[in-house]
């Protein structure tokens, strides 16, 4: 079937791909930095038993005490990797 795109149809299709919220896009763009933080924290936990125990006891407090403020998703990943 061959159809010709008319202006109305083009308008409908152009309206479909609206911009995602700016904050979502920014958070996704910051993933590489978030993962570098994650790797750094996990590496420290592997090398430092006291730090690891503190993380396992209260992850958010232990990270805040060390100056880390990771995103919720990074916190979930750290939990997952620490318990692996």
């Amino acid at each position, binding site marked *: 079937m061959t159809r010709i795109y008319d202006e109305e149809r083009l308008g409908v299709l152009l309206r479909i791909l609206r*911009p995602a919220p700016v904050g979502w896009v920014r958070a996704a763009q910051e993933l590489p930095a978030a993962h570098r933080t994650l790797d750094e924290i996990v590496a420290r936990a592997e090398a430092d038993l006291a730090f690891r125990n503190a993380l396992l006891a209260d992850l958010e407090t232990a990270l805040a005490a060390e100056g880390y403020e990771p995103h919720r998703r990074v916190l979930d990943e750290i939990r997952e990797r620490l318990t692996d």
Partner: protein
Amino acid sequence: MSKAAGLTDAELVRLCRAGDPDGWNELVERFSRYVYAIAVRGFRLGDEEAEDVFQDVFTRVYTRLDTLRDDSAVRPWIAQLTRRRCLDVLASRGRETAVEEEVLTHEETADLGEVEEAFAVREALAGLSDTCQDILDRFFARDQSYKTIADELEIPPGTIASRIARCLGRLKDALGPET
């Protein structure tokens, strides 16, 4: 516009694998509307669920980019990741017990087809002048009024309608007949 914006999908994937931050920013920019549209329009997810899907999809893309066999197939791969995550959300809601695409209603399937068609139109749009891209995007995708467009682009408001019509004509020519 970054230099990565002019790259093909395959080139962009290679740049991301090399750890280039501009490459990753462009990849997110290039596919963010697509992922958002699949979640919100195709699967009719609310903001909170759509945001979870959106972030999960880009996290998976970032952490699994090395597993992509064909770099030029990044878009269908992202689409598949997004659809799967959306189906997981629907299943977790208890709306459906099965998590296969067969559970989608006819309407949802049609909407997903339209998202694909919209992406093809957007790719054609990328071949037009920056001015045309900007005006059509502002008017249709961002719902900006003639006045806002005129003010922000510093062009006479009376010329906006004719510019939109002219740019739509160019877009139509760029697309050719729809098959």
